[in-house]
């Protein structure tokens, strides 16, 4: 078993595509013999049998059963062949997750490693959520030991905006995670963490920083930023903090995180175009005492 420390979670893992994950997790390798938070194992199979257990629910192509030992198993059917393409078996607290992947699953875009990357990302997110954290869909940067997460639906331009910060401030800015930064509360204050699950890009860093602001982005011709009221902040956060379709209780726990974030971090709405002026508008709002002009 290999070890990693991701967002403060001690993870022991064994992946099917070891070379890919050795590379992706290279900044997160840990030699700590600490209490394990998550045991994560992926295997690839010629054929996957239906998991045994008491039927819980059928949700689209996923069947959920509970085994006698209490483990929950979620099997996902391949749409083309009707065969079981993956089984995710976990303890109810997500402290141990075993992922079985069907070797012959074919997809026009995704490879087997892509699926392994996605399912292990879900496993990490579920355990983090269970332990009181969350994963926010967004592009996260750290600057002067302050974390800022730019969030929006896919394709709006959060990565583009984060990259503008990097281009403008260069080494002063670190892109912490370009897709799904982790958030945890430490001593009642929110912190942002890099994780190796950073979407399509490899842009991530094993960095943690106090979370200073969350900025929701909308494309516009103009650049302006306003602080969202409580209701709109909840709406924006709840739409970008994923709640798993297979576990309602875990989904409800994300609302605890949202409640903590609302009271500890300002949430903004940014209307912006692709320009340094957009960076300036956000910088001046968040770091109000240090105005810059471009």
């Amino acid at each position: 078993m290999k070890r990693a420390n991701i967002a403060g979670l001690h993870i022991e893992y064994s992946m099917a595509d070891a070379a890919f994950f050795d590379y992706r997790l290279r900044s997160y390798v840990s030699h700590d013999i600490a209490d394990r938070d998550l045991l994560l194992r992926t295997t690839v199979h010629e054929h996957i049998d239906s998991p045994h257990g008491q039927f819980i629910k059928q949700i689209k192509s996923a069947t959920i059963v509970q085994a006698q030992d209490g483990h929950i198993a979620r099997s996902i059917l391949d749409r083309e062949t009707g065969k079981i393409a993956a089984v995710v078996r976990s303890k109810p607290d997500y402290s141990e997750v075993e992922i079985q992947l069907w070797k012959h699953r074919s997809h026009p875009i995704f490879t087997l490693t892509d699926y392994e990357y996605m399912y292990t990302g879900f496993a990490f997110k579920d355990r983090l959520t269970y332990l009181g954290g969350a994963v926010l869909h967004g592009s996260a940067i750290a600057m002067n030991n302050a974390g800022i997460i730019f969030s929006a639906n896919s394709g709006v331009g959060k990565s583009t905006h984060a990259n503008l910060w990097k281009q403008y401030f260069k080494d002063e800015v670190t892109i912490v995670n370009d897709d799904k930064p982790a958030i945890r509360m430490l001593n009642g204050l929110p912190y942002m963490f890099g994780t190796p699950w950073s979407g399509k890009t490899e842009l991530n860093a094993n960095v943690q920083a106090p979370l200073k602001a969350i900025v929701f982005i909308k494309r516009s011709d103009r650049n302006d930023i306003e602080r969202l009221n409580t209701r709109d902040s909840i709406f924006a956060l709840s739409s970008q903090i994923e709640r798993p379709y297979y576990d309602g209780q875990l989904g409800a726990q994300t609302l605890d995180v949202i409640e903590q974030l609302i009271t500890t971090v300002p949430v903004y709405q940014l209307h912006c175009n692709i320009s340094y002026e957009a960076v300036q508008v956000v910088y001046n709002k968040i770091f109000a005492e240090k105005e810059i002009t471009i």
Partner: protein
Amino acid sequence: MKLISGFSLRTIADSRVVVPVGETTISFKGMITLNGSGAFLWEQLGTDKTETELVLALQDEYEIDEQTALLDVKQFVEVLSRAGFLQ
């Protein structure tokens, strides 16, 4: 009548919100905000209730007359029913 499962009602910083959880997150993308009486009725509908029971509960809680309570309940139930939130 009662609410379908798959929603979580929370009061966050004085805002009463309902968000989908579990399977419902697939079919309902969004959030519902409720005022005080709406949240009260939502909680009542966690278990099976008749219209009359809802009216009586609302009258007890808010000390309002029957006509006002009946109008509120009818409007609320109509909205929930149209959205497919009742079973």
